[in-house]
């Protein structure tokens, strides 16, 4: 049924596009600011009143729009008083707009795509325009949010170009998922990663510590019109459980009535591996030799235009990149078609779009020790040879009559020839996304509109790795190994919402929404075919399914179907905003969910209140806007699929049966999150200075958790815990300079978050929860009562009270007071999350030149470099000089060579307290310098821009031996740690844009 509606609507919209009303004419003109320093105003919204038709002025303030006589054009621009002009015979209408002394009354997109005036919001919401996102374009648009929005923490994954991204709003609340919900044009986006690593060694089963990619990296940054971030649960309560970590609302571009406009942009960056360990000279030469200079090219094209009744937006973007690790190649194509139409005297609005995206990546970088070329590169410590001698990575083996791996010493599970790995353990990722959505809106009368939307969202993630014979036996069978994994995510979403608006009396207004939605998802539905480490291929180096050795009682090969989540959530919800004289607003929402994962429906409400101080009180003239807000929300969240219904799985041998690994201790109930926030917004001096200050406190209780099941089960599933986040967010907007030639816009964002595990599990004796499990390597990520999310555990070196390392009488450096309550005796060494973050974003315009720079800073928190510890074990670091120690054999202080000391405390299972670093860092995150070409009126082009851009150029301050903003996983595990992750890159490039 849904399919046929889609097809029908697509037909419909193509028919409509042909209709052009005869009496329309093209109105054009220039919009400038009024006054002595009159300047053209770019980006002014020009709409034909009473229709949805609208355009924006270009960089020189020019616009053109089709309208008929008698219709009214409305010109609106943030910070200026709107102007309306009636169309008559004249076809050129120039307008001079006056700067508004009144407060900004801009419109913000809120939950479910409902637009609200900013002053009525009872919670924090911050938005960012497309220009901000694409100035220094990133293949994954979400990376561009870092530092630009208060309270957003962005960690890019260590898998290079095309990798996924971790975004956290207001701290971590959940042991399951802390990523916000992404919503595109009102419809929840399916953003599930096929796989994220969580093993400090490297995942043998999945052939490496892989980042499976995410849906965000499959979006096209060019399609984004603006992004609004709703940080807290109050804002996102209407999205229900999915919105409990906040919501990122993405508004995409749509066609605008008028002449078809074509834009091209091209972006080339050159990327260099940076912030590497301090190797000794010999090793440094080898490492430098290994890394390539990477390049990224993004070419984007879009066409937009249409009639008063039907508009089209089409875009195509391709991305070609080669990474800093040789043979790493990325190809990505995205295609987007969007049709908007207004029918039945503009009563009916239709909006249909289809997004197609495909990305293929060769040798996507991984972390950990296994299948990772960086281990062999950093470990290469031959005294006589160079790493480049081993670019010839194979040699003929007469015993086997095949080409075998070649390396300067015996290979091991962790150490192989890096060029062998790149060529003979090569991997291919192929990710695709299809997103089709349709929205219909019918306006019955002044106060009632009904809207219905649906989307079909699908991700495909395909992965294969072909491992040739003579790869180490831990990682491969003697004849090689072939792993093929096909993962599909599917989400169907539909909603119907009635939107009601009314002024009840002179002073009171009411707006309300009542709706219902349904979401059905199949996530991580996969087929895994793996000839295995403990199985084999029949014939060496033939990578086909028919070459698998299939035994009857074997543990391997693995031929499996899996599904991570299969559920349906049905909801009804309502929200209402009551306004009093535009001074006070009361916001109420309620939602009830039925989820297939829990047996009972669950209900949750929110309430918020806003007062416009600047309208209630007589304030000094310098204050143009003042508002306070407060809100409280509860959000329910369902649990993981199948946990309430544990069943057996098929065992490995003939007739084998394995009982469920997860057992619910008692029937599981939904989780609850309670959050409270207050805030205030002020603007001064004609909006040249403004700030927004907020405080929030969030408690997540009765959380769904998997804990160590002791002797009862592998894992017990329970509802427990109380995780508290509280913090302060502030943003300041500032225009320090504004005159004829120069305008400097600055934006400072500050966020501080405190997380405390107030309660973990009152019923059981279990003291901790492992986010990254304790194993033989000296790193784990644990949650313990009284601790906080992201606590890093490892082994602590025994030291004197004065801080000197102690060498015992046997000549060893040993562990200090191992914590008997963590298995492995691991001690708390640090926390991966920053104490506070600061972003300072600047845009300076001088005549046709624009300079932008973003300084991004994080203060506090710790990271561990297990890479450095392991490389110390290999002895390739630059460890010169002496280290002062206390020797118990002689009971005296002494010194030993640094090289010897670090080899003794290092290694992957060494004393990692000595590899903990302050994560504080301040960096020049983005820099761009651009020029807008002045064009003649009769020029074919409407605009030409060119800019030089730089990303991640340097650190003003950094303690860690790597870029601490990189994360090995975009899930909860492996935070605050580097284990041979692909190094961060410094990028410089060129950006050219044309439109005509």
């Amino acid at each position: 049924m849904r399919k046929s509606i889609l097809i029908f609507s697509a037909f419909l919209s193509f028919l409509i596009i042909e209709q052009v009303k005869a009496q329309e004419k093209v109105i054009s003109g220039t919009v400038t600011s009024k006054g002595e320093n009159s300047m053209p105003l770019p980006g002014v919204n020009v709409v034909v009143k009473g229709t949805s038709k609208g355009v924006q002025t270009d960089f020189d303030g020019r616009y053109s729009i089709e309208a008929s006589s008698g219709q009214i054009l409305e010109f609106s621009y943030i910070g200026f008083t709107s102007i309306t002009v009636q169309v008559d015979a004249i076809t050129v209408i120039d307008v001079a707009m006056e700067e508004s002394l009144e407060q900004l009354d801009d419109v913000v997109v809120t939950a479910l795509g409902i637009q609200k005036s900013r002053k009525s919001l009872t919670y924090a919401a911050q938005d960012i325009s497309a220009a901000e996102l694409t100035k220094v374009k990133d293949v994954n648009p979400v990376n561009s949010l870092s530092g630009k929005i208060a309270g957003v923490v962005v960690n890019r994954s260590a898998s290079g170009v095309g990798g996924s991204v971790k975004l956290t709003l207001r701290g971590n609340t959940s042991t399951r998922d802390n990523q916000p919900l992404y919503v595109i044009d009102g419809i929840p986006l399916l953003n599930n990663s096929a796989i994220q690593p969580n093993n400090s060694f490297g995942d043998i089963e999945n052939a490496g510590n892989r980042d499976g990619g995410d849906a965000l990296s499959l979006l096209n940054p060019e399609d984004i019109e603006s992004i609004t971030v709703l940080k807290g649960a109050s804002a996102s309560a209407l999205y229900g459980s999915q919105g409990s970590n906040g919501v990122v609302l993405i508004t995409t571009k749509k066609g605008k009535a008028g002449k078809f406009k074509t834009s091209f942009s091209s972006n080339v960056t050159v990327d260099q591996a940076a912030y590497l360990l301090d190797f000794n000279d010999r090793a440094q030469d080898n490492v430098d030799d290994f890394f390539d200079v990477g390049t990224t090219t993004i070419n984007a094209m879009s066409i937009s235009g249409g009639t008063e009744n039907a508009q089209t937006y089409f875009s195509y973007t391709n991305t070609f990149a080669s990474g800093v690790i040789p043979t790493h190649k990325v190809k990505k194509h995205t295609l987007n078609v969007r049709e908007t139409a207004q029918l039945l005297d503009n009563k009916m609005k239709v909006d249909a779009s289809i997004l197609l995206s495909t990305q293929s990546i060769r040798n996507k970088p991984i972390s950990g020790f296994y299948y990772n070329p960086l281990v062999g590169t950093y470990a290469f410590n031959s005294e006589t040879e160079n790493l480049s001698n081993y670019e010839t990575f194979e040699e003929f083996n007469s015993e086997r009559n095949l080409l075998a791996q070649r390396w300067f010493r015996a290979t091991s599970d962790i150490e192989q020839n890096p060029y062998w790995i790149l060529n003979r353990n090569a991997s291919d990722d192929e990710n695709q996304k299809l997103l089709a959505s349709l929205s219909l809106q019918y306006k019955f009368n002044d106060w009632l509109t009904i809207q219905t939307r649906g989307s079909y969202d699908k991700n495909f993630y395909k992965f294969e790795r072909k491992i040739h014979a003579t790869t180490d036996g831990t990682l491969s069978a003697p004849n090689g190994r072939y792993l093929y994994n096909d993962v599909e995510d599917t989400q169907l979403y539909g909603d119907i919402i009635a939107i009601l608006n009314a002024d009840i009396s002179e002073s009171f207004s009411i707006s309300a929404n009542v709706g219902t939605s349904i979401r059905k998802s199949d996530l991580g539905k996969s087929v895994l075919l793996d000839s295995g480490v403990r199985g084999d291929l029949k014939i060496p180096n033939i990578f086909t399914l028919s070459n698998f050795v299939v035994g009857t009682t074997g543990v391997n090969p693995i031929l499996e179907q899996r599904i991570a989540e299969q559920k349906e959530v049905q909801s009804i919800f309502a929200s209402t905003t009551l306004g009093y004289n535009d001074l006070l607003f009361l916001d109420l929402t309620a939602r009830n969910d039925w989820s297939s994962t829990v047996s009972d429906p669950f209900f949750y409400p929110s309430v918020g209140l806003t007062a416009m101080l600047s309208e209630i009180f007589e304030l000094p003239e310098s204050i143009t806007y003042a508002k306070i807000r407060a809100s409280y929300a509860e959000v329910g969240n369902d649990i993981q699929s199948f946990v309430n219904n544990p069943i057996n799985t098929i065992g490995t041998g003939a007739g084998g049966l394995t009982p469920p690994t997860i057992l619910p201790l008692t029937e599981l109930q939904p989780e609850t999150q309670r959050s409270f926030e207050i805030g205030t917004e002020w603007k001064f001096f004609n909006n040249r200075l403004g700030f927004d200050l907020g405080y929030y406190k969030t408690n997540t209780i009765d959380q769904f958790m998997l804990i160590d099941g002791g002797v009862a089960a592998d894992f017990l599933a329970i509802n427990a815990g109380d995780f508290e986040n509280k913090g302060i967010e502030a943003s300041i907007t500032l225009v320090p300079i504004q005159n004829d030639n120069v305008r400097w816009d600055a934006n400072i964002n500050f966020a501080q978050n405190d997380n405390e595990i107030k309660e973990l599990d009152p019923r059981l004796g279990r003291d901790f929860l492992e986010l990254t499990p304790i194993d033989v390597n000296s790193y784990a990520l644990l949650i313990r009562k009284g601790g906080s999310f992201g606590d890093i555990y490892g082994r602590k070196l025994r030291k004197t009270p004065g801080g000197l390392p102690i060498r015992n009488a046997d000549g060893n450096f040993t562990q200090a007071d191992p914590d008997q309550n963590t298995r492995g005796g691991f001690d708390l060494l640090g926390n991966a999350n920053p104490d506070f973050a600061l972003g300072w974003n600047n845009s300076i315009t001088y005549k046709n030149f624009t300079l932008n720079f973003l300084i991004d800073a994080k203060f506090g928190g710790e990271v561990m470099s297990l890479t450095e510890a392991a490389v110390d074990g290999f002895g390739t670091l630059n460890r010169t000089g002496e280290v002062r120690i206390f020797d118990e054999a002689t009971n005296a202080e002494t010194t030993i060579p640094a090289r010897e000391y670090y080899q003794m405390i290092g290694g992957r299972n060494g004393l990692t307290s000595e590899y903990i670093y302050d994560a504080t860092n301040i960096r020049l995150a983005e820099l761009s310098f651009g020029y807008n070409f002045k064009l003649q009126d009769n020029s074919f082009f409407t605009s030409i821009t060119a800019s030089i851009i730089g990303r991640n150029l340097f650190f003003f301050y950094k303690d860690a031996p790597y870029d601490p903003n990189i994360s090995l996983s975009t899930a909860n595990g492996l935070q605050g740690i580097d284990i041979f992750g692909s190094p961060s890159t410094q990028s410089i490039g060129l950006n050219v844009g044309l439109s005509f």
Partner: protein
Amino acid sequence: MKNISKTILKTAWILSLLFSSCTDDFDSLNTNPNGLTDEQSEADFISIGGPFNPIFLNIYRYDPAWNTQLQHNLNADTFSGYMAPPRPFVGGVNTTNYGFVDFWDQFPWDIPYSSTGVMQNARLVKERGEEDFPLMYALAQILRVEAMHRVTDVYGPIVYSKYGLDATFAEYDSQQEVYNQFFEELDQAINTLSTDPTNGQFAKFDLVYDGDLAQWIKFANTLRLRLAIRVSKVDPAKAQIEGEKSLSDSGGLLETNADNFIIKGGVTHPLTIFNSSWNDVRMNASMESILVGYNDPRIDEMFEISNVSAGMYKGVRGGMPLLDGYTDELDQKADYEIFSRLGDSYILDKAPTTSIQLMTAAEAYFLKAEAALRGWNGAGDAQSNYEMGISISFAQYGLSGNAAVYIADNTSTPIDYIDPVNASNNISALTTTTIAWNNGDDNETKLEKIITQKWIAMFPDGQEAWSEFRRTGYPKIFPVVANNSNGTIDTNIQIRRLPFPASERSTNPQGVAGARVLLNGPDTGGTRLWWDVNSGNF
């Protein structure tokens, strides 16, 4: 206004209609399509037979190999004098030299209690089949005893009779209680199997005897004899009763190598991985001293000539620290990984075995030999059992022709150990006992011979070898080079157990507190288990 409220009501009514009946498929949605419900697994008796598969594959875990390394290799396999790691793990302070590594020491515990372990799966067989499939339940009981005696012999008190009663707290049994239950369960199981020994319903699930229940009876009898001998010092009366039951049972004991209890998992033996891929395990110096000293031809099958001393077998001392002169673990490992590897059966590109051997017919004869020394009825003659044990073991390696000369050798003794890389590891042989039986010897000397030969025959099952070493003090294996126990373990007496595992300390603290009381001693590696009596063997 009236219109608005009407509309809201109408909308709500329509919405409520939408929801009246569409949550019907929630139950099927919340069922994993790749799993089996209990009803679905009833076909072909999979629900009863299926749980045996994980039991077989995890008594000695097949996969992943690093689990097995921590389950048996970096503890019992080293403590037993069979093998030793060439690498001084964790900076030279690790479980092999009594510097306990919490993360390692929980694996002997965690595996049997996991979803693929024996406890959960035997319980499922009991729940589903105790009434209707008594034979199957009897087999599960035998396997549970086989698996769990290995666990209680590591830690002492374990969770056994109170298993599964409460998910949040599990009470331990003392080792004596556990052993008494073992004997009861074996009694029941042997009786049940004896009622219908030709029943074939287990055939398709059996990874050892292809469903031949008569063989299972032999195994159960031998297992009971093993356990009886184990408690012969602490509770001689009970031991004799239980032992004589086995000796007199019409089902008999393991007799030929065809009877050996060998799990045919179909996958490479995990020792292969840490022997030939990770190079984390080598021949133990004690093994070299005894096998080379005795000119034992089985050494060619069990080990490889080393690359450190031309043409010679060379073992590694157990419990090495990071020795003087080495900068780090890998540096030292580079010197020791060229010592003798385990033989072809455990080398990836040679002839890796897929069989896990947990009991041999040779052992049955050595058990009978000791039973004879202890005067148990039905044990037969000590000497002939002893010599039969050796012959059967030789036959197992295809060396039958060499057995007679070996058995008659009354001059060869274990040799002194010389470490060609670090002379500080050199140590003199601890015994001058020879191979040939001498009826004039005292029982203690005879027992040393029996246990020494049993030790060679049981290779590579270090868990059982370590238990018998603790019980009898034989064979005379070399002590650890370094002792990091802070005085809790005597270097010469050697390690008696592993401390209660960290997984239990963190998930079941109340249970562990009770277990510590049952232990009758501090929770260290130096405290003797219940059957480990500190006195002479006779």
